[in-house]
Each structure stands twice: as C-alpha cells, then as structure tokens.
C-alpha cells in the first residue's frame, strides 16, 4: 500500500485529449471513402453462389442491379413464393426492364454510357427459366455487358 501512496504526490497531469478528434476524423474519413450507401432495400432473398473467376465492378455509378430470388417472408402474401425480379426498390415484371435500364442510363453522362454494366444478383436456388427470360430482355434492350454477381470461393 505504501508504494501507491508515495506515487500520488507527484502524479503527472491528465493526458491531453486534444488529438482525439483528429484520430476520430481519420477513422471517419476512412469510412466515408470506403462506404457505399445502401441503394435499395431487398424484397427478395438473394444468396449469390460462389465462383473463382471473378471480375471486380469498378465504377458503382455505371452499374445497375437486377435482383432475382424468392420474395422475403413478409412480402410473400402479396407476391407469392415464386422467384421474382426486383428492379431498384420494387418487385417488377420482366417487361419493366427496358424502362429501368433507360432510367439508369439517363443518370450517366453520355460519354460513359458504353461502360454500363448490369449486375445480376441471383439467388443460387433459382432455376434458370426466369434468368433466361431476363437475359433475353437484356439482349433485346441492347444491354450486353452483364456481371453474374458471385462470392469468392473459399477453399
């Protein structure tokens, strides 16, 4: 005990917290840079399969997302349990794809339009029927660059 009491006399002043905001700001900027704001709430369950030959999608603004999967539990009363397509925020029909692509195209400057990619986020359990229909519709609307979203395979 006496050892502790001895030290109390010459205790050093409190640690300066002036640099704390700087550290926090540094973290903040890191997260601001890496962050991607959630663009749409999913109404279908999508669990993408694994693959090895992956390409990274570079420019987020040049990508439009098409989700295919079973509607989530709380939407099943309205949309049933069959796999459906979701464009943006709402569950859509395949015939809505051209309009959706056109709307996305209008947000992109003209010079960058050839680089537009479509990311197909499809649940692994879905059968190919609906996927083929979506692919056909994409081909008809001349959106030929497609990326089948997948997770990297862990061996």
């Amino acid at each position, binding site marked *: 005990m006496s050892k502790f009491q001895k030290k109390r006399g010459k205790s050093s002043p409190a640690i300066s917290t002036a640099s704390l905001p700087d550290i926090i700001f540094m973290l903040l900027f890191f997260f*601001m840079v890496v962050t991607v704001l959630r663009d749409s709430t999913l109404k279908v369950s999508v669990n993408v399969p694994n*693959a*090895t030959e992956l390409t990274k999608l570079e420019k987020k603004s040049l990508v439009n997302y098409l989700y295919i999967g079973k509607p989530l539990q709380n939407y099943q009363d309205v949309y049933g349990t069959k796999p459906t397509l979701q464009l943006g925020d709402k569950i859509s029909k395949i015939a809505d794809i051209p309009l959706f692509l056109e709307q996305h195209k209008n947000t992109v400057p003209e010079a960058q339009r050839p680089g537009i990619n479509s990311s197909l986020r499809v649940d692994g*359990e879905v059968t*190919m029927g609906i*996927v083929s229909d979506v692919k056909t519709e994409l081909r008809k609307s001349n959106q030929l660059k497609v990326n089948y979203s*997948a997770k990297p395979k862990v061996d």
Partner: protein
Amino acid sequence: MPRTSSRDRMNNEINAGSMADIAFLLLIFFLVTTTIDVDKGVLVKLPPWSNEPPPELKLNERNVFSVLVNSENQLLVRNEPTDIDDLRERCKEFIMNPEGLKTLAKSPKQAIVSLKNDRGTEYKTYLLVYNELKAAYNELREEAAQSRYGKSFEYLTKDQQRAIRTDIPLVLSEAEPSDFGDE
C-alpha cells in the same frame, strides 16, 4: 493588419472537447450504412439480339465442346455424363489437344464451347459450369503467358495480352434453354 486586442488573443482557443463527439456521431453513421462487400462477379458479354434465326453453321464436330445441363443439374459433356469437377480438365484438354487427337479441337482458335441448359437447371449449377469453362480458358492463357513471356498474364502489356487472347479466344456459345424440367 489591425492589431487584435489582447483580450481576443487570450481566449482564442475554441474548446475542442465536443468535436470528438460530433466526429463519433458521423463515424457511427458511416459505420452503420457502410457495406464493405465489394461487388465481384463473373463477367459475361451477351450476344446481340436479332429476330432472325441464326444462320446454319457447318461446324466440324471435333471442334465443338458441347456441355448440356439438365433440370436435375447433371452434366452431359460430349455425350458422356461427367462430373463437374472433371469439366475444367476436359475442357483444357479439348482446347489445346496436346496429343493431336482427331477427336479434339484442331486448334485453340477453332475450338467452340457450346453450353445449353434447361429452364429447370439451378442457377448455382449454371454459374458453376460457366465458371469452370472460364477458368479453363484463364488457366490456358496463364500457361501461355508463362511459357511465352515468363510472366503472369495480368502483368503482361496490353499488346501481349491481346496476342494471347487472339491465340486462345474464348468462344462460348449459349443455346436457348430447353424446356423439359419443372421450374
């Protein structure tokens, strides 16, 4: 410059104590909204749509590597049932044809991979098959890069990559899916 009064100079330090709180607030906001998962996937170029039926092509059967996937997710490669784990090796052997067999592709440039699935095929299987076929080509290009330039394919110059790509072109034709199985 007008002289600042001594009073100003005395209290010119703003209390920065609450700055950390504000920064924390922002930090937590970004932490919550952030999605770290990077968007990766298998890149595919679809063929343009045309209303006319495709022209009848006379292809030498030895140059076609046909892969059929049925609604039970089973594979039929060149009329033999095959396991998906063997697909990559078989495809590579078919393209390069190291022993010069009469039944395999004449040259990598003439090799065509034809993929056909059913509407009842699971997407997972389809992507796995597509991935294996793409992997076969990527591995062959990598081998070509190593033997020709002694470097990995991704470190080659644009021209060297193009040269290899024209020697081993990825020709993957997808037929319209059949409609036998349940969706």
